């Protein structure tokens, strides 16, 4: 067991921790040229340059707005669908589930190309709403899966009990289901935000280059920015979801039965 722990630590550090450390180090050092003995030289200008770019801030703000909008819609659809699937024993549940999850297997690119014409026709092309709608396609199936699993683990007994005690629909959701579904909410938040931040092609197609998100700034940066600046930008891409996640984590604290003492008498 002990040797196993050591080998795990080595593998985890080399393959999973080290790359992030590397990006961090490169972002605060001038580009490395070991041959000319230019090793680690401390600098801060890459972040200064990055944060002075007004495009970056515009894109960050747009990405955050899109990310949260996508998250909220995912949350509502996932919660309702998970609840419906777990509390109804009707036949054909497996089929409903399969249909709901099937968009994972369709190429998003094909769907975005197909929806482009519709978006132009109804005036949603080149708009924030159009991009938000498209970002739902690669995320909602995962949310449904996560919430369905969450409800399955909680089990219908928990919900029946609050029903018997006379809790209404919303009371039941807020006092029983959401507190128990906390792990599901966490994974959903994380997954949705990162997937939304990863979309370049479909944002470019539906946003028409007018909706500027972080990936749309990152790709052109590749051509003329130096390594330090790119490394700083890469770190920025991890800072955004972590910050957004912390906000959600604070909101989760508002749920009943959290560790905050003032939430415990309800």
């Amino acid at each position, binding site marked *: *067991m002990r040797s*196993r*722990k050591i*080998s*795990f630590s080595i*593998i*985890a*550090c080399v*393959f*999973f*921790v080290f*790359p*992030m450390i*590397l990006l961090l180090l*490169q972002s605060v050092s001038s580009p*490395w*040229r*070991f*041959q000319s003995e230019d090793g680690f030289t401390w600098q801060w200008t890459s972040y200064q340059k990055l944060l002075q770019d007004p495009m970056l801030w515009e894109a960050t703000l747009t990405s955050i707005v899109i990310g949260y909008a996508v998250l909220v819609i995912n949350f*509502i*659809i996932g919660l*309702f*669908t998970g*609840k*419906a699937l777990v509390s*109804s024993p*009707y036949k054909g549940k497996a089929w*409903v589930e399969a*249909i*709901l999850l099937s968009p*994972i*297997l*369709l*190429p*998003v*690119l*094909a*769907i*975005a*190309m*197909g*929806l482009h014409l*519709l978006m132009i026709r109804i005036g949603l092309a080149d708009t924030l709403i159009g991009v938000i709608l*498209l970002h739902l*396609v690669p995320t*909602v199936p995962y949310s449904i899966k996560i919430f369905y*699993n969450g409800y399955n683990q909680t089990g219908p007994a928990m919900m029946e009990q609050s029903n018997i005690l006379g809790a209404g*629909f919303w009371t039941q959701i807020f006092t029983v289901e959401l507190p128990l579904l906390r792990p599901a909410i966490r994974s959903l938040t994380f997954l949705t935000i*990162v997937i939304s931040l*990863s979309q*370049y*092609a479909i944002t470019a197609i539906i946003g028409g280059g007018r909706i500027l998100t972080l*990936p749309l700034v*990152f*790709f052109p940066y*590749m051509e003329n920015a130096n390594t330090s600046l790119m490394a700083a930008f*890469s770190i920025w*891409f*991890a800072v955004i979801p*972590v910050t957004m996640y912390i906000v959600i984590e604070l909101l989760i604290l508002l749920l009943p039965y959290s560790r905050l003492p003032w939430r415990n008498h309800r």
Partner: protein
Amino acid sequence: MKLFRNKILLLPAFVFLALPFYGFMTAIVQSLGNEEPLSHYWDLLDSDRFLASIAFSIRTAGIATILSIAIGLLLIRSFYKILVQLSPRLRVWIPMLFPHFVWGYMVILLLGESGIFSQIAVVSGWMESQADFPIWTRDRYGIGIIITYVWKEVPLVILLLLPVYSSIRPEYYALVDTLGGNGWNRFTTVELPHLLPVLVESFLIIFSFSLTAYEVPALIGTTFPEMISVLGYEWFYGSSWDDRPLAFASMVSISIFLLILTIIGYTFLNRTRLKAMRGGK
């Protein structure tokens, strides 16, 4: 009343489904065009660029998927007891924090021709110059694409397989041990039946993603051979509008290919399940 309310709860999900299905239907209609039926598909079959791209895409995505699943499975088998704790698990999930293309950039930084590894190789005297360093990014064989995907998907495989391993009851292992089975027997008789549905599902999710995602190959791939997503995107945004139906046709063909693969996967799963229920091997 209760049943009715439960069905109402499914409404948002089905409204959402209209989006991908309408988009996909439009893509099919656009790919058929106004001329003789299927003409764009015949054009595709005549296009060497398309055929080379599809072969390259399936090969690259296939290798990346199989490697991700194999490595993920190996890691979780060896370190399951460690991975149930939170902090080791978070360490393994670090790559999931970054978008795919950012991880692709990290691979360029590390393994590119003037990347960190090639610099170290020269400084340590292992290689004469950076020109000796093998070309692993923007290469003809898709090595950079494969490395990026494997690195990003191994944590996902661990995420998907972890609940399976925690649901296996230790009594099963004890049974195999009492009957004199070895490690291999443990894997095939206890773990594999639990794992199979999740493995098939993971394969389909990762394969269809890496086959059709645009970002990573656009960043770290080369222009020939190119992944089908890059070709489709180029045809969609290309200089002439004549290529647009080809973009739709190529995307629809790849979707049909994925659909067939999914059906094969689930038929296979059902057959093994039936066999297991009948008590056969």
